[in-house]
Every structure is written in C-alpha cells, then in structure tokens.
C-alpha cells in the first residue's frame, strides 16, 4: 500500500512549549483523514510541518512520497492548502487571486484561464470573479480559497478547519465540495477540525488529538466502540443533597457535568431507563429531563480525556477567532 502522508514521531517545540509531542500516522492514497481535537491541540502546527512551512524539532514526515524537510520543493508542487486563517489578497479580485496562484504554480495561457473558470464554477463563484475579495463574505472567501488550492491539481489537499466560523448552510456546501473532490479526483485530503460532525461526515479515518498527542485513531465506528455504552443525560431537581451521581449495578459510569446535568453510561439505554426511574423514585430524586443517545465522538473524547470536545467548551475561543476573521474582512 502506498501512503500519501506518513508522519513518524513528529515533534515541534516553540521555545519551552511543546506544541506537538510525537505524532505518528499514515494516510492512504485517496483517503480523507481528519485530525479532530480542541483548540491548541497542535493541529495547525502539524499541518504546517507537513506543508513545509515549519521545520519539525524532531521526527520525520513524507507527503506524496517526498520528505518534507529534505525535498520541500517536490512536496510543494504536489500539495494544495487552505490555511486556517485567511490568506487571500484582499485588494485583488477573485480572478486575479486565482491567476496569480496559477502563474506561480507554473500554469499559463488558455489552460490557466480554463482551470480558473472551472474551479470558480466548482465553488459557485464565477459570477463574482471580478469583485475584489475584500467585499466577499467569510463563506465566499473560504470557497475561493478552496478553489485556489485546487487550480494546480494537487495530489494531496490540506484543509485546516475548513468551515470554522461559517453558518450551517455554507458548511454543508463546503462538505459537498470536499466529498466531490474525493469522489471525482481520488484526491487525498487531510483536514483538521474541532467539529465532531464534520469529522464524522467527511473522514474515512479520524485521529483524535489532544495536547499535542494522538490519543485514538480509527473510523468513527471504531472510535465509538471504545466507549461501547449508550449515554443517558438526566437533569434532576436540586434537592437537599445537591446533584450527585447515582449508583447501581446497571450504571457503568457516571459524571456530574459542569452545566448541572448528570451523564450516565449504560449498556443499553432502552432497558436501563425504566430501572433508572425506579431508582430515582426510591431515592426521592426528581428527574426533570432525560435524553439518551448512542455514543458520539464527543463521548469518545470525554471517555479518553475526561473533558468535553463540544463546541460549547470552545465557543468563547471560536467567537474570538471569528472576530479576528471579521476584522480582516473589513
């Protein structure tokens, strides 16, 4: 099996801070591979090492068959990247941005023009081609960046948080493009995200990364099997004893969440719920609200780290980042 990306014990230190602490993984050709992790996990740092913009402190990586440190030029020819932060020339039009990219990557003439129009059409921006990028919305800029990364037909495409800060409709659109790229061009795609639905929707395989280390890797089904159990969330009335965990032999795990809900792991929620009500009644606990579901990637993350991956926990940070993007957009 030939691999599009291999990373072997990659480490990156910024002074005293170790952002990436020994990351190893392999991505097969034609596969969509996702790095799922919270803010500051080391996702962007890893991408920057893979695309030759940062030198690893130690470790080795190859992309499209070339070593990222020893043969950066060969790697650069074969990759496309959409950075987490905007990277367009805002004074220029969409077409000019595409044109400059194409020229620098060695295309020219009618071939370049055709490619530009094809790609603009692919992301549904052809009617805005002569508008300056500074008048584009965040979603339009993102789509243009994706189109730009595709002009030179890269073998491996890197997408660093492709839908961060975008509305649900635009996100769905971008997911559609990503799926089509894989299907129609058999492109290898490496993407990072902290949205579990994004990883689940798009990725063939997912690596969960936290504090610079991969803590689990596999298909989303494989990862969910790590938790195994169903998950029940209950909200209980705050009685004399406060909110506490419940104990019974059918409860495999229990945790009081910061928002006051109690999270229970059980083998089968459908069978456990009646028992749970009974138990509550016996103990004089009043249940106000119940939800239950099959384990999600968030549950996997919680199971592995004891913390939540969920957007809630990151939203403050997200908003700050969105604010930054907005500021640039003015």
């Amino acid at each position, binding site marked *: 099996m030939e691999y599009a990306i291999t990373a072997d014990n990659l480490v990156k230190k910024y002074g005293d801070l170790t952002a990436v602490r020994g990351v190893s993984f392999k991505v097969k050709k034609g596969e969509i591979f996702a790095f799922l992790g919270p803010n500051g996990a080391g996702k962007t740092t890893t991408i*920057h090492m893979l695309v030759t913009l940062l030198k690893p402190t130690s470790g080795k990586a190859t992309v499209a068959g070339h070593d990222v440190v020893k043969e950066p030029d060969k790697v650069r020819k074969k990759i496309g990247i959409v*950075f987490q932060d*905007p990277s*367009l*020339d805002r*004074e220029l039009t969409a077409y000019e941005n595409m044109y400059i990219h194409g020229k*620098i990557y060695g295309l020219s003439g009618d071939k370049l023009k055709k490619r530009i129009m094809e790609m603009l059409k692919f992301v549904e921006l052809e009617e805005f081609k002569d508008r*300056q990028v500074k008048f584009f919305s965040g979603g339009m800029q993102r789509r243009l960046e994706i189109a730009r990364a595709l002009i030179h037909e890269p073998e491996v495409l890197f997408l660093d948080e492709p839908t961060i800060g975008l509305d649900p409709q635009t996100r769905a659109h971008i997911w559609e493009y990503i799926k089509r790229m894989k299907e129609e061009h058999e492109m290898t795609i490496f993407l990072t995200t902290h949205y579990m639905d994004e990883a689940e929707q798009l990725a063939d395989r997912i690596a969960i990364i936290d504090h610079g280390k991969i803590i689990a890797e596999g298909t989303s089904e494989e990862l969910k099997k790590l938790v195994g159990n169903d998950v029940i969330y209950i909200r209980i009335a705050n009685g004399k004893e406060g909110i506490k965990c419940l104990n019974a032999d059918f409860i495999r795990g229990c945790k009081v969440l910061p928002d006051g809900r109690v999270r229970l792991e059980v083998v089968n929620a459908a069978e456990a719920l009646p028992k749970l009500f009974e138990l509550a009644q016996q103990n004089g606990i009043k249940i106000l609200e119940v939800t239950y579901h099959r384990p999600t990637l968030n549950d996997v993350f919680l199971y592995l780290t004891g913390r939540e991956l969920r957007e809630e926990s990151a939203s403050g940070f997200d908003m700050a980042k969105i604010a930054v993007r907005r500021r640039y957009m003015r």
Partner: protein
Amino acid sequence: MKAFTTMAYRQIKRFFRARSRVIGMFVNPLMWLIFFGLGWSKVFNFPMASALFGGVDYLSFLAPGITAMTIFNASFIAGISVIWDKQFGFLKEILVAPASRKEAITGRIFGDSIMAVLQGLIILLLTFTIASSLKFSGVLPMILIGFLLAVAFSSFGVSLALRMTSMEGFQMIMSFLMLPLMFLSGAFYPVETMPTWMQYLAYINPLTYAVDAARHVLVNAPATTATASIPGMPTVSLTRFSLTTDIGVLSMLALAFLVVAMISFERATIE
C-alpha cells in the same frame, strides 16, 4: 521567471487599486517643493545667490533632490506591504508555493521600484514647470538613477519588514530614519557648506549619491560659474562627486541590499 513576473505584476496591480494611497504619495514631496522650495527661492532671489547653489537658481537646485526624495520615500514605504501580507496571510501563500523565493522577492522589489520611479517621474515633470534650469534630456538617465535608488531602498524596506510584525513598528523606524536621511542628503542645501561632522554623515548616506547624480543629469550647468563677490560668502559647486562615482555607489548599494532581501526571504518562516 514566473515568480518574478507574477510578483511584479501583483505589486503594480495592487498599487493602482489603492487610489487614495497613490494620491497620498504626492502630497509630501509637493509640500516640500511648493512651500519649502518657493518660500526659500524668494530668499535666495538676490543677484549673487546662485553662487551658493552651483550657479543655478534655488528651485533648479532643489528639484532633482525632491525627485530623488520622492523615489526614496515611495520605495522605502513599499516594504510595509510585506507586513500587510503577513497580517492578512498572503505571505503564507507565497512561502508554500513551489517557486524560487529569490525570484519572488526580486519581482516584488522590482514591481515596487517601478512604481516608485513612476511617482518620482511625475513629480519631476511638475518641477519642470517651476524650475528654470532643468533639461529634458536628463529624464531618461534619471529613470536609471531613480531605479537604482528604488531597488536599494525597497530591498532595505522589505528586509526590515520581514523582521517585524507590526506596521506601527515599521512606521516608527521609517519616520526615525526619513528626516535625517533627507536632511543629510544635500537635497535642500549643499553638502559642501555643512559642518564637517555632518558632511561625514552625508557621505555614508545613500541618498546623497542619488541627489548628486540627479543634479549631474538634470541641471543645465551654467557656462560661467558665478563666483561670490560678497566677503565671507562661499562659492559652492553644483555636484560633489563624479557621475561615475555616484552611479557606482548606487549600483553597489542596490545590489547589496537586494542580496540581503533575498537571503532574508529565503530564511523566512511563519514562526
């Protein structure tokens, strides 16, 4: 060549997009020329005054200096677009491209230099209307001199900007250097009559050689040089160095700064 021409194209395109910036660039030199130039030209209006300025009227003495100064300002400040590109992320797009970085940065510097020379030329053509002893045949050689000057200072600006993260920082350094370099260049008054210590500083100022060369090519030297007959009044020559020296020094500086810019860009990372 693709990275060179593409980056030059981009810089020129961007320049014309920002119309307010284009107009802003002319305000400064025009202020010097009109308020400073016309103001002093009335002071130096007495018969012997031309002896102070190599035998020509003050405006003709000043005009080549203002042209050089315009090119110097415009090319130096162009470096700030590198910081702009860092902040708006476009720099990453260039750094990750499979193109020669030396070519890319040289293209950028040449693009900026062409625009700086163009601005200088426009100012020069305006000075023809108020200065009496300028010759049109000097315009073409002035383009070459201006280009060398522009390459030197846009390379300097780019190298500086690559080491900085904030525009404010760059602007501070620029305003710190701008006035001394201008005053020590002999653009406003002759180097010859400066205090000795100032003359030494003028000799290590690249702009001095550009101003001197500009006078060589642009000013109609009078057939008979006026000598001062007032006691204590000095007679000053129009130029200080030979044109060969001027162009030699400028070429060397342009090349040296360009190499520094290439090396800086080659080593640039996003850390």
